[in-house]
């Protein structure tokens, strides 16, 4: 029996199906991210675990016991809300102490644990401050400390970093990961930010329109997306329509001009769609049999170059590391090459 088990969890809002038969097993100590665009049901799922929304059907068990039968206030879960939802009339220390007070923890023990937890999130110097006098990052840490201090069975994070600016968000990602490793609390993160999900979690659950698209470790999910949705949502991807040519069984790009061909698995036939990540594409010598194209735009982004290349199969995005070498300029003819192993193939017609 897994630590936390969501069994065919479904939630309807009138005719709208917010979550559609979601099943997920989470092991103790694991960090799982629910990732998807807004309206995909990830927040509703979190609210059902927290007890703020009742599922239409399905079950949730925690350590083998039915969680749905327990009132939200008795579930013993730590929640960090998107808005932080700090108590504005209490100091940071009072905010953190509130949950312990509710548990009836004695005064000395309470003080000790509040001090410890504030130290864990690096806020020892701000214990007596009111939330309104703190920065967004500090409020975020108070919210995290308040959720962690009660030693929750599960930590639920609802878009915890979305209100922070980009630089701070990156710092907090690293810190959040370290804190989670230190305390070892089973954590479920809800986010629409794929970078955040990949940076923090052990496993990613990609959701779309209430359904699970793919569950897997970040690297694997990124490298081998199970569905076109995952491929386009998790990072950027180029999709090229191709046709299986009769001779040799390779895929040939449709369109005019000389096509390039790549070997594909023998069970494909007819029309296929090739997906390849922008950073997996390199520039080869023009005569070397790659996909020929012309540089439409070239954008310098510090650590990398972002290219848009016009090819017979459409516009292809290419990302190249800035290694200091000279790179093709706009209007130049190039040849795009990539390893067949970096490419995924699926059967698809014109509509796919």
């Amino acid at each position, binding site marked *: 029996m897994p630590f936390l088990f969501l069994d065919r969890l479904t939630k309807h809002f009138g005719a709208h199906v917010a979550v559609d038969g979601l099943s997920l097993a989470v092991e103790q100590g694991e960090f799982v991210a629910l990732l998807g665009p807004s309206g995909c049901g990830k927040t509703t799922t979190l609210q059902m675990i927290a007890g*703020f929304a009742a599922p239409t059907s399905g079950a949730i068990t925690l350590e083998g016991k039915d969680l749905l039968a327990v009132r939200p*206030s008795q579930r013993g879960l*730590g929640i960090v809300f998107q808005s932080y*939802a700090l108590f504005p*009339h209490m100091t940071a220390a009072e905010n953190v102490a*509130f*949950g312990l007070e*509710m548990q009836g923890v004695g005064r000395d023990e309470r003080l000790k644990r509040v001090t410890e937890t504030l130290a864990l999130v690096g806020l020892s110097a701000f214990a007596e401050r009111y939330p*309104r006098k703190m920065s967004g990052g500090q409020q975020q840490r108070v919210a995290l400390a308040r959720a962690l201090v009660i030693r929750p069975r599960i930590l639920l994070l609802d878009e915890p970093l979305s209100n922070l600016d980009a630089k701070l968000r990156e710092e907090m990602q690293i810190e959040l990961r370290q804190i989670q490793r230190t305390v070892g609390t089973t954590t479920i993160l809800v986010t629409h930010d794929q970078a955040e999900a990949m940076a923090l979690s052990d496993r990613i659950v990609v959701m779309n329109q209430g359904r699970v698209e793919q569950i897997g470790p970040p690297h694997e999910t990124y490298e081998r997306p199970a569905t076109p949705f995952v491929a386009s949502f998790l990072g950027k991807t180029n999709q090229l329509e191709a046709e299986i040519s009769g001779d040799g069984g390779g895929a040939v790009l449709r369109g005019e001009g000389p096509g390039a061909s790549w070997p594909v698995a023998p069970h494909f036939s007819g029309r296929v769609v090739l997906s390849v990540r922008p950073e997996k594409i390199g520039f080869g010598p023009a005569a070397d049999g790659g996909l020929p194209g012309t540089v439409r735009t070239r954008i310098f982004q510090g650590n990398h170059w972002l290219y848009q290349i016009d090819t017979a199969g459409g516009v292809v995005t290419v990302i190249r590391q800035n290694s200091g070498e000279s790179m093709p300029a706009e209007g130049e003819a190039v040849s795009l090459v990539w390893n067949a192993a970096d490419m995924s193939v699926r059967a698809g017609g014109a509509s796919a």
Partner: protein
Amino acid sequence: MSAAVPSRAGPDEGRASLAPYLLSLPAFLLFVGIVFIPIVMTVLLSFHDWGQYKGIEPVFILKNWREVWSDGYFHEMFARTFRIAVAVTLLSAALGAPEAYILNRMRSPWRGIFLLVILGPLLISVVARTLGWALLFGGNSGVVNKALMSLGVISGPIPFMFTETGVIVALTHVLMPYMVLSVWAALQRLDPQVENAAASLGASQLTILRRIVLPQVTPGVLSGAIIVFALAASAFATPAIIGGRRLKVASTLAYDEFLNTLNWPLGAAVATLLLIALIVIIVGSNRLVERRYGEKLR
């Protein structure tokens, strides 16, 4: 370079700082004309002399003030005025704050409907509203009194007309909207997730209300209380109709001095004293609210 900046900015700043004053001049003149000057004249009037046959004499004496200060009749009037105002304030806080909380949690069509119900008393003429109360409670034939008596709950009718109870009930009815709106405004600034956060930390519904919601809406309750208190203490129409001539408060007393006894200077003294008392109480409690909650909730 740095020395040149202030000298160049000087005239610009001068013009810019004058503009707000010029723009607010019309409103300021209107305020002076219809509020400030009449009040000053009322204050001056309170120091004039008055006699049954000689009328108002423009002299400077303390006769009226001495009379108001020493006569037990006036003490009773002012004590009653503030007793009623305090009772109305407490009642509307006790009823209005929960009302606002419930209103805030209502869903779309009901919220609008009940907001209208709450604002209702403000939309109805004071005469119609007060007569309604009289029909419900007044005399032996009042609906409520009749019902309670025939049920055997009370033996005689609850006196309503010409009593403090009647004035308090009717004033609470009409002033409640101010409390509800003030508390509601405070509730709307509340992060809706805060209650969920407290629940997830193990707080019961009652604890959430007491420890999380109430402290955050207290400034709203207090500012609502200031409005209700000021309006209750200076209310005229409701005490005049329900209290009548038998149960006077400061405002009806001033009215009587002006229009029945024709002792304008004495009426002016009563009105001025009411104004001063109200200003002292309101400014004082406002200070208290600001000092207590200014740092935390702003």
